[in-house]
């Protein structure tokens, strides 16, 4: 097949093109894709630009949720008054994916589809019970984000399927959120550990804790043991320590160029502990955040 550089103007056209040619490389922000050896980049002769498709753009409220188009940039996410108020953890993550220039190009859908274990927004999506709207030759389907990652950089995307939208259910009243990225420096860095939290504070205790982390496993993970450890427990130092220990115990991070397994486990525990202490302090001050 000859080379092709396609810029469809509708989701249907994009899906049709992908169905006809499974070798087409879908491109969006390109902030990861373009960081390759020049020979490999120039060998990409069949590409499909997703950034001109209206259905993939925009942030809108739907019944009980907010949907973010997959081609929405992190800059738009961080600037959105709606997202900042409903999903502060996501807005915060958007501001640390990289410097201004990266934020202007990198997309939420790209972060998801790229499936790096270090993706900064991914633990937030897990903690917020996100769902993905996927579009493919067989039509549109919705998938719980927790089922999307199947292994290191392997996803549940079927051939010819793309991420069309990310749906975030409106948080229940009384939900608090937290986000922390521990990077190699203060800005423009890849994470050593990245953590997101969402929880309801009810009657002096944590209800429904959702804790997720990146860079501590081959995929972004929910910290289930840590969540269990919080169930039915009152806010306070003891619970914070318990949850932190459970979190550190349930991950198997690695040594790599950025950090060590030991440090990652330690930092994860400390970050989780601090998040819970902060919720406790806010709770003690009267009312959930």
């Amino acid at each position, binding site marked *: 097949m000859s080379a092709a550089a396609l810029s469809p103007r509708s989701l249907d056209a994009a899906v049709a093109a992908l169905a006809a040619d499974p070798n087409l490389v879908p*491109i969006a922000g390109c902030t990861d894709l*373009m960081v390759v050896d020049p020979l490999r980049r120039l060998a990409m002769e069949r590409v499909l630009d997703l950034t001109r498709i209206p259905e993939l753009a925009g942030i809108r409220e739907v019944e009980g949720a907010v949907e973010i188009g997959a081609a929405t940039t992190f800059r738009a996410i961080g600037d959105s008054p709606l997202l900042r108020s409903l999903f502060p953890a996501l807005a915060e993550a958007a501001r640390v994916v990289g410097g201004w220039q990266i934020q202007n190009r990198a997309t939420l859908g790209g972060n998801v589809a790229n499936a790096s274990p270090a993706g900064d927004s991914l633990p937030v999506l897990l903690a917020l019970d996100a769902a993905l709207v996927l579009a493919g030759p067989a039509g549109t389907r919705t998938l719980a984000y927790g089922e999307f990652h199947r292994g290191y950089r392997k996803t549940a995307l079927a051939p010819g399927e793309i991420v069309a939208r990310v749906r975030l259910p409106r948080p229940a009243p009384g939900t608090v959120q937290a986000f922390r990225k521990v990077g190699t420096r203060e*800005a423009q860095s890849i994470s050593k550990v990245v953590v997101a939290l969402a929880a309801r504070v009810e009657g002096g205790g944590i209800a429904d804790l959702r804790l997720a982390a990146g860079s501590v496993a081959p995929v972004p993970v929910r910290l289930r043991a840590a969540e269990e450890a919080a169930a039915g427990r009152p806010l306070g130092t003891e619970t914070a320590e318990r949850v932190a220990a459970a979190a550190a115990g349930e991950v198997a991070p690695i040594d790599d160029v950025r950090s060590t397994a030991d440090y990652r486990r330690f930092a994860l525990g400390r970050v989780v502990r601090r998040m819970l202490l902060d919720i406790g302090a806010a709770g003690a001050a009267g009312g959930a955040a």
Partner: protein
Amino acid sequence: MSVTVRAVLNGEERALSGHPMARLLDVLRESLDLTGTKEGCGEGECGACTVLLDGEPVLSCLVPLLQCDGRRIETVEGLAAAPRARAFLDRFVAAGGVQCGACTPGIIVTAWALLEREARPDVEAVRDALAGNLCRCTGYEGILRALAADAGADETEEAAR
């Protein structure tokens, strides 16, 4: 394989041709001899290749030619040629914001975009805006002096008393 896109480059309508995945940086530097935009890393880490795409700072080493169709592109050459740029550029030099000059075009472009949005940014706003522009020579002090409204008056004259 080659595509031709139409873009407005530094105020002028141009047809740009090349491989769809050619880096905008290479199109500027090699096809158009616009060598003001620099390559510092080729991996999107240093900001030396910053240009404005529809008024937003982006890294031209990460933008494929294909995605430039119908867009407005501004490089350091275009921005610096604007009559209202001269005072800004002179102030930047006077404050010690330039040493070797390799990071400078990228910084100028990002700073320009910031100042279009906020005429008198404070130090924190400047640090946020420039977090993606690396400088190895100045320690960033001269750059912050040049751009931040709360950096204080230039005391060069006082010191030269």
